[in-house]
């Protein structure tokens, strides 16, 4: 028997999404399994651990670091990471003199293959509008206070170019292995709103 459901009313968006998906499956554009796989990939496999591995490798391998800074997309593909939307990836190195910070002022462009999907704050009107106007204040709200001597540069992503930060390698990490260094690299440090963690901050 259809039509009798004692369940909460679904939101309109859920109903609309089902309508769209069911029609497109019928038209043979994709299967439900293919959509399942996309979702699984972004829920499980694709995330900032990827970017952390890229950063750790760049810290220990100067040749890789150079390739990464020259052509981000090619360099991350060496490690098996690739966006499927066709955008370029520019990797920006943070130094004691320059703090680069990334935003997408118009929507949410973000280097998915190395960072996963963006957090809610990155997509918020507050971040998108304020970080370009008052970056130091925004960074301070993230807990990052920079000396006046540090230049802050804000980079606006778009559908053609996405950005990832190569954070500064923390002091006291000279004897750490690449695997150990991965643990220091947070998602936020690869957006530029935080620094990488010091060894003392990781238990």
């Amino acid at each position, binding site marked *: 028997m*259809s*039509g*009798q*459901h004692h369940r909460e009313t679904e*939101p*309109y*968006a*859920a*109903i*609309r*999404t*089902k*309508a*769209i*998906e*069911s*029609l*497109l499956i019928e*038209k043979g*554009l*994709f299967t*439900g399994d*293919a*959509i*399942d796989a*996309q*979702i699984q990939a*972004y*829920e*499980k496999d694709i*995330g*900032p651990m990827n970017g952390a591995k890229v950063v750790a490798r760049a810290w220990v391998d100067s040749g890789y670091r150079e390739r990464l800074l020259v052509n981000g997309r090619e360099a991350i593909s060496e490690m098996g990471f690739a966006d*499927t*939307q*066709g*955008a370029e990836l520019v990797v920006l190195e943070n130094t004691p003199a320059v703090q680069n910070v990334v935003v997408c002022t*118009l*929507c*949410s*462009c973000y280097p998915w293959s190395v960072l*996963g*999907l963006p*957090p*809610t704050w990155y*997509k918020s*009107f507050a971040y998108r509008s304020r970080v370009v106007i008052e970056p130091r204040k925004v960074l301070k709200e993230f807990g990052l206070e920079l000396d006046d001597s540090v230049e802050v540069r804000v980079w606006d992503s*778009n*559908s*053609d170019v996405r950005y990832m930060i190569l954070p500064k390698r923390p002091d006291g990490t000279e004897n750490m292995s690449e695997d150990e260094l991965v643990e220091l690299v947070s*998602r936020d440090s690869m957006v530029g709103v935080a620094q990488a963690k010091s060894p003392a901050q990781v238990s």
Partner: protein
Amino acid sequence: MEDRIALPRKNGELVFDAPWEGRAFGMAVALNEIGEYEWSEFQSLLAAEIANTESSDSSTYYERWLVSLEKLLLDKGMLEAKELEARTTEYASGERDDDWHD
């Protein structure tokens, strides 16, 4: 399938706040990957939808995503407005209830 499986989290944040968001995301990405449109086409619509609604309504990011996807599908002729409305009504009324993906 159990209704109350915890939604996946990364860094302690939900990846999607509800299953439909994941479906809308997955569809937009899949259609781009098979070459139905350039990613910039979807992104332009999303940016426009955000700009048009951000100061006036409280729709969420994925609601805007869904609106953008729908526009693109209609523009590209992958869907027709009539069939979309008809199918939406079937689900809304409970006449159709194949929600295996929930």
